């Protein structure tokens, strides 16, 4: 059986993209395999681990729980886009300085969720930061260093 295909037009990291995609393709699979943007990681594929977190129309979403066809007409920003625009630079540096990653698998999603917290005016309240990041799993750091990094950025130390 041939999968139903549909053409989509969207903006990815500021660039207009037009593609023909199978309707069952998830947004994160589309970004990784069709566009080669492998910064968004695929962990659990059921919305629990947060490794695929990216921005659609300015809001963080799970890239594994959205179909590529649902992204038709939207503006998508991935970790590559955050790096290019410098929008996540302070957080990236703080993660580096604080050793807030080890294997790095969770980092793109973690940065996206942390950026959402910082940009929404979140305070350097460790409990609130942990709650906001509770949808992003990290199996290396124990989160302590990640919370340190987010606090650094909010307190202007980075």
């Amino acid at each position, binding site marked *: *059986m041939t*999968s*139903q295909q*549909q053409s989509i037009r969207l903006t990815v990291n500021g660039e207009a993209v037009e593609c023909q995609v199978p*309707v*069952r393709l*998830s947004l994160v*699979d589309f970004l990784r395999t069709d566009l080669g943007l492998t910064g968004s990681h695929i962990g659990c*594929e*059921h*919305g629990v681990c*947060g490794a695929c*977190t990216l921005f659609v129309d300015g*809001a*963080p*979403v*799970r890239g*594994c*729980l*959205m*179909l590529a*066809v*649902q992204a038709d007409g939207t503006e998508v920003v991935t970790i590559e886009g955050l790096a290019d625009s410098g929008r996540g630079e302070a957080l990236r540096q703080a993660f580096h300085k604080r050793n807030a990653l080890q294997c790095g698998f969770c980092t793109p999603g973690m940065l996206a*969720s942390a950026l*959402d917290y910082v940009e929404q005016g979140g305070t350097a309240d460790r409990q609130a930061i*942990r*709650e*906001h990041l*509770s*949808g*992003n799993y990290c199996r290396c750091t124990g989160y302590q260093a990640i919370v340190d990094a987010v606090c650094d950025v909010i307190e202007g130390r980075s």
Partner: protein
Amino acid sequence: MKAPDFAYERPATLADAIALLSRDDRDAAPLAGGQSLMPMMNFRMARPDLLVDLGSLGELKGIAASGSHLEIGAMTTYAELAGSSLIAEQAPLMALALPHIAHSAIRNRGTLGGSVALADPAAEMPAVLLALGAEIVLTGPAGSRTVPADAFFKGLFETDRRPDELVTLIRVPASDQHQRHGFYELARRHGDYAMAGVATVSSPDSLRIVFFAVSDRPVRAQAVEALLTSEDLGDPAAIDKALAGLDAIAFAEDLNASARTKRHLAGVVLKRALGQLA
């Protein structure tokens, strides 16, 4: 895993959506925010062969005050509810519950109507709607009908919705100044599904207590309500006595805990919710 193959339609009108759901030759499923349906499809627990994406139906979005009620479009997301001053002022119980629903990235896509139609027994919104005495509006080929939340949730992922109907509107009574609201849930980590939770609405002459994540559906604890007066709500000893009313609830075990533990946790969450009424 990836979802099994399916066909996909994104109708522009409600009538088109219902026509697609009514097709006899297809096992069609409505796609709202997809935050539960997509995982279920990825696990291959759900295998619809036609997804009807409701994402273009602007008429199902938005929150409006209509006299004594709030009318909430089914496709309104949790994030939109959380950002709404109407919800904060007129449905404070909903505002109390929203931060407990999953995580920011899920709340940006997940919808009130999707949660209602799915009827996960551990979900917050069905219990909140039951506690508030809300009404669910369903629209199908023959028109619309209104079902009280009390009659809508029928069992494990089972509701009064027929396969060719859509949840289109949720009608919530606006809070009055005499009402106080309680919400508490226990979860292994913030944003996880609850191990046990409760939503309460109290006024000087009435009390509604609804538990979730303790049975196959959100359950109203009328036997507990009957043992409490408005003066008792700040009295832990009186609440302890009223917990005898939990006998009337069919507690059910899940992956988190046995039925016996669920019963114990129901008492814990009720005392905590009543101890911090808003």
